[in-house]
């Protein structure tokens, strides 16, 4: 498995992923639409802040925050943990192991293929965000605008690696759904999915040390809030560090786990 061969296979893997997304387009669209939580939270928080700002957040700030969160969530969301535990249980993983390419790359390529379709949803939201009431709450600093895309890419990588690690747990445990659920509970609270982390008070301090903030809140903070330049270093640095940690963890778990694989029904 050389790096060169992997690189050459990537475009093909990506095309397969696109074809898969297209084959189940109705399903896929519904799946995209399930990400409604930011919109519900938007409705809730804007009406809370309608008459007077809520802890420095005006109604327009909340609109900007949750639309930005919706974009990041759309672009970073994936279901690799569910897919992997299904493949492991059904034995389909055996096929993937036979291929001369690391399954991490194969899964990543097929999930990256979903991004163009998710963009179809994310772009109109971004436009609404730009022209709508949130425009005053957005950043105008060119450096931060330039960092938004890399930050989203890092958020995607952290999310993918973490979910890949959870998926690899299926080698050790039969029921990984409970763990995936627990993950999502922690994510909802500590990533800023339900509300800006600042509003959480003491919990926000804890959130600074967990990976979840770097999976959603970091790019959203870049897009919306005005910060000092050294905060930027902390945000991006944290993202890089967590990307490295989750990636290493995912690969270690994978290598430990794959040895136990018995190809059930394969």
């Amino acid at each position, binding site marked *: 498995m050389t790096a060169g061969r992997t690189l050459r296979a990537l475009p093909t893997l990506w095309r397969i992923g696109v074809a898969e997304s297209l084959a189940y387009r*109705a*399903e896929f669209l519904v799946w995209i*639409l399930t990400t409604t939580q930011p919109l519900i939270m938007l*409705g809730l928080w804007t009406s*809370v802040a309608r008459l007077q700002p809520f802890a420095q957040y005006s109604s327009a700030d909340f609109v900007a925050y949750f639309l930005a969160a919706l974009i990041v969530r759309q672009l970073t969301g994936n279901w690799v943990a569910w897919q992997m535990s299904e493949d492991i249980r059904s034995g389909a993983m055996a096929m993937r192991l036979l291929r001369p390419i690391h399954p991490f790359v194969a899964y990543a390529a097929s999930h990256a293929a979903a991004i163009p379709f998710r963009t179809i949803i994310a772009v109109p939201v971004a436009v609404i965000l730009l022209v709508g009431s949130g425009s005053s709450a957005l950043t105008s600093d060119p450096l931060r605008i330039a960092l938004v895309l890399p930050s989203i890419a890092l958020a995607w990588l952290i999310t993918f690696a973490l979910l890949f690690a959870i998926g690899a747990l299926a080698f050790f445990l039969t*029921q990984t759904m409970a763990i995936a659920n627990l993950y999502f509970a922690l994510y909802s609270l500590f990533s800023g999915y339900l*509300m800006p982390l600042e509003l*959480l008070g003491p919990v926000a301090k804890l959130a600074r040390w967990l990976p979840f903030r770097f999976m959603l809140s970091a790019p959203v903070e870049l897009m919306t809030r005005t910060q000092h330049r050294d905060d930027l270093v902390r945000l991006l640095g944290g993202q890089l560090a967590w990307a490295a940690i989750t990636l290493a963890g995912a690969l270690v778990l994978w290598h430990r786990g794959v040895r136990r694989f018995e190809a059930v029904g394969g």
Partner: protein
Amino acid sequence: MIRILRLFALQFRVSAAAAMAYRANFLAEGAMSAAWTVLNLVPLIVVFGQRDEIAPGWDRPSALIVMGYFTGVHAVIEGTISPSLQDLVEKIRSGAFDYVLLKPVDAQAMISASRYQPWRVFDLLAAVAIVVYALIQRGEWPSAADLALGLVLFGAGVLATYALWMVCAAASFWVVRLDNLMFLLGSIFDVARWPVQVFHGVWRTVFTFVIPVAVMTTAPAMALLGRLEATWTLATVAGSLALLALSRVIWRTAIRSYTSASS
């Protein structure tokens, strides 16, 4: 009718026995749903940390009661209806639905409660706990009539939710792989955590008439608080019965286009 109820009880016993076979999983799932319930209270705690009211007339105890109703309806839906309907989608795909149609019981009754997640009982208990806590905070207990009405409307809320889920499941006769539709419905249903008055403009119209969140939790909570006007009470009950009738009609139409996958 009694036959169907006995069937439900029997199916529940089988599911409970199956769940008890994996006791660790049962407890883990129970703990998980308790954790979710607490997590879902966080936004409410944060909002009321700074505000006295979330919408006119909705202070902390009354908003908590809506949350309690939501937890209750959610427990019933996730505990029985959602798993059963997922089972139905699976059966339609595999062709096993043939056997359901052959049985001398109404097919809709048969599939509406074919599978349970018994640990959702913990959620139901949490719902009661939240409502009781909210009532203590409020310092004023509902009259017997309000309590009765609150319970009746809880039933109406569950029926309305069931009907919506049923319509979604019926869609799987035409478009086989659409289990996601139920996830979508579930994520929209999350709105029901909040009194519908919190939302404004288009949102409120949608949540009152298109996806009747108001019927599911806000109206029952208002009934328990003794705030629901008679016309609204009637509209709520009528609305949920109409939804139920609609789901029945759609189900009957859908079942006609079932073409067994096995043969």
